[in-house]
């Protein structure tokens, strides 16, 4: 309250997103140019312009990452990519082409439009035998290569990991089947 207007304005600018962008674009420039010293005379203005444009066009959905979960997510993702590729190879290379195609509805707790939801949709497409075909408010329609495979459990495990990654509250509900049984 007692602070002068200019100090308040200065404090109102959140510096973190600006610094994070500058750092990321600097890393990107270093990777692209191999760190040639002469390149920085073009690089520094490019980094600043890119950071400015990125800030102007970002929709500013704040999110927090848990870095330990990020590491375990990357390992999980690589392992699942390996499984997914081998799964496709197994099916393709058998003469009788073992497929059990179908659509499966997967209820999700993550809300559409958030970074966590976007990551979920993209990661499911690279997981073994699943492909998102439709996004609804509380669920995803998945196309699966094998309807007999434990799709719901695997997608649930992925969702739990993503929730942990973005530090979101998440109840690991395996009661979808219970609800289904009650109705039938």
């Amino acid at each position: 309250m007692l602070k002068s207007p200019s100090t308040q304005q200065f404090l109102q600018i959140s510096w973190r997103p600006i610094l994070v962008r500058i750092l990321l674009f600097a890393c990107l420039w270093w990777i692209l140019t191999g760190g040639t010293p002469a390149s920085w005379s073009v690089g520094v203005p490019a980094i600043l312009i890119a950071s400015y444009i990125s800030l102007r066009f970002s929709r500013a959905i704040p999110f927090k990452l848990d870095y330990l979960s990020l590491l375990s997510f990357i390992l999980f993702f690589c392992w699942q990519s390996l499984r997914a590729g081998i799964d496709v190879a197994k099916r393709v290379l058998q003469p009788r082409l073992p497929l059990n195609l179908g659509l499966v509805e997967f209820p999700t707790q993550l809300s559409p439009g958030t970074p966590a939801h976007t990551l979920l949709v993209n990661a499911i497409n690279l997981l073994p035998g699943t492909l998102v075909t439709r996004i609804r408010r509380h669920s995803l329609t998945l196309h699966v290569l094998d309807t007999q495979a434990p799709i719901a459990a695997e997608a649930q495990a992925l969702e739990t990991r993503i929730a942990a990654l973005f530090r979101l509250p998440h109840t690991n509900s395996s009661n979808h089947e219970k609800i289904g049984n009650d109705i039938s």
Partner: protein
Amino acid sequence: MTNPVSISQWLSAVLTVSGTFFFIVGTLGLLRFPDIYSRLHALTKADNLGLGLLVAGLALQADTLSSALKLILIWLLVIVTSATTSFLIARTTLEQGIQPKDKP
């Protein structure tokens, strides 16, 4: 025989060859799978792994850290685009009323 250079070269060769194998598998899937949806599975999953192994193999041969990271960056950009485009193609197909086949 067992000096580090030759080990990493062998590993690199194994990774590159298995990467190529998965690219062939993806193409076979494109030809053999029955509908758009299942063909998308073959392409996204096999190519993600194929390119991942290829990139890992080539990164082992890279001279500098930044060129190894550049290869990994290429892999990341490709998997993001392939995951997103496969969803967009699948969604458009479903919206047009093309139902997935249930048997090959």
